[in-house]
């Protein structure tokens, strides 16, 4: 039903977790995937997992690397139909203990990183003129807040509002923009949290387990597909009911 044969997709943060699962899922659906990551070795490992996936180096906090990766993707694969940013980072701790350097890193990587990645590919998508899909990855923390993730939640909430506003601006170009909000997911990022935090988060999930990265990737792939041709500016949580609503 979902068929992305021949579509070019860019997945940033494709070296691990949700980004890797997304790159592999889109490739399994037939897309040609540019798998970009700060860690080129892990992006290359993702690329070895499926046909039609090529690794690229991209650091969302360094504009020069975004521009270089963009140019390389346009040269190698052409203008993408699908852009997904799954690169993200968190450091859990009391808000009162954080400092400006931490805030700037959290907002810079999660929010400004998303903005910069999406911005980089829009011109080529608009120029080609047959529309496209942008899927951002926020977090349930950005919808309902999360203790110990206050600035991260602020950045993720920013991604949600950014996605909706961009959806309005891009509608005329038939570029649909939607946002997936994972809850606690079985990824390296989650594994880095203190055990106490991990247990508390798992207990709070009505389905009583973590998301698998593939389950988040499935929602991203849905938004990227023809099946979602009338959906834009929407936010979908894949969190086992941790947060409800839409």
């Amino acid at each position, binding site marked *: *039903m*979902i*068929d992305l044969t021949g579509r070019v997709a860019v997945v940033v943060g494709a070296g691990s977790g949700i980004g890797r699962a997304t790159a592999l899922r889109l490739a399994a*659906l037939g897309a040609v995937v540019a798998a970009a990551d700060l860690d080129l070795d892990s992006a290359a490992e993702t690329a070895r997992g499926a046909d039609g996936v090529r690794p690229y180096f991209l650091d969302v906090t360094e504009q020069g690397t975004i521009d270089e990766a963009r140019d390389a993707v346009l040269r190698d694969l052409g203008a993408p139909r699908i852009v997904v940013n799954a690169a993200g980072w968190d450091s859990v701790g009391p808000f009162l203990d954080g400092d400006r350097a931490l805030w700037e890193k959290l907002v810079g990587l999660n929010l400004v990183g998303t903005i910069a990645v999406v911005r980089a590919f829009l011109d080529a998508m608009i120029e080609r003129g047959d529309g496209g899909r942008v899927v951002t990855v926020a977090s349930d923390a950005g*919808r309902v807040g999360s203790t110990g993730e206050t600035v991260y939640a602020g950045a993720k909430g920013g991604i949600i509002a950014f996605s*909706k506003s961009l*959806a*309005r601006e891009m*509608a*005329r170009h*038939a570029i*649909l923009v939607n946002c997936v909000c994972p809850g606690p997911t079985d990824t390296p990022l989650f594994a880095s949290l203190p055990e106490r935090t991990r247990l508390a988060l798992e207990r709070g999930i*009505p*389905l009583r387990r973590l*998301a*698998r990265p593939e*389950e*988040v990737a*499935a*929602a991203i*792939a*849905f938004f990227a597909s023809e*099946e*979602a*041709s*009338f*959906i*834009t*500016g*929407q*936010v*979908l*949580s*894949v*969190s*086992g*009911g941790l*947060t*409800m*609503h*839409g």
Partner: protein
Amino acid sequence: MIDLTGRSAVVLGAGSVIGRAIALTVAQLGASVAAVDRDPLAVARTALLVEPPGDVRDYEADVADAAGFDVVRREIEIEIGVPHIVVEVTGAADAVTGPAVRAFLDGMVRRGRGGRIVLVRGVGAGHGDRDAAVGLTTSLAGELAGDGILVNCVCAGPTDTPLLAAQPRWVRQRLEREIPLRRLAHPDEIAAAVAFFASDRASFVTGQVLSVSGGLTMAR
């Protein structure tokens, strides 16, 4: 990629244009479908439109008649089995409305293998459709999570249906101007979102409300 082979699905309100698209889509993906509506002619037409080897059977039932509805519910459970998927479409003129979903829950819970409920509502702000849908979806999702039954809601934006076509031209034009994508939804686009929620692809999604509205609504 979405495969519902071997699943049984009940579509309540399957005589409406959107309900019909859902019944046909779900059947095309391999599920056995019980198409239910209080309008026997409308739902018979739904069943007639299915392409082989799709399996859509039509049932006339009015949820306002509890005893009568229960008879039909038992008939459905005998013929296609306790449903894995229950879709309730309301808002259209011909739809079965009300707590018809409730009738199927006991069987689903007793079987103990989870399931999917998808509520389909309009996005209309004027009649509070969406707010009511959010309340029902999240409450049901919370209560049924322990049984592995996932509950989600699709809110349909203005859709290209005969109901809308019958309105004066300016109504349609005004709607199209307000929708960022500048067109109405096709019923199949609503059905596609329902199929996603009903599928294995949505195995960790519950309590969510997804608008298929071309950007008309971007709630929270």
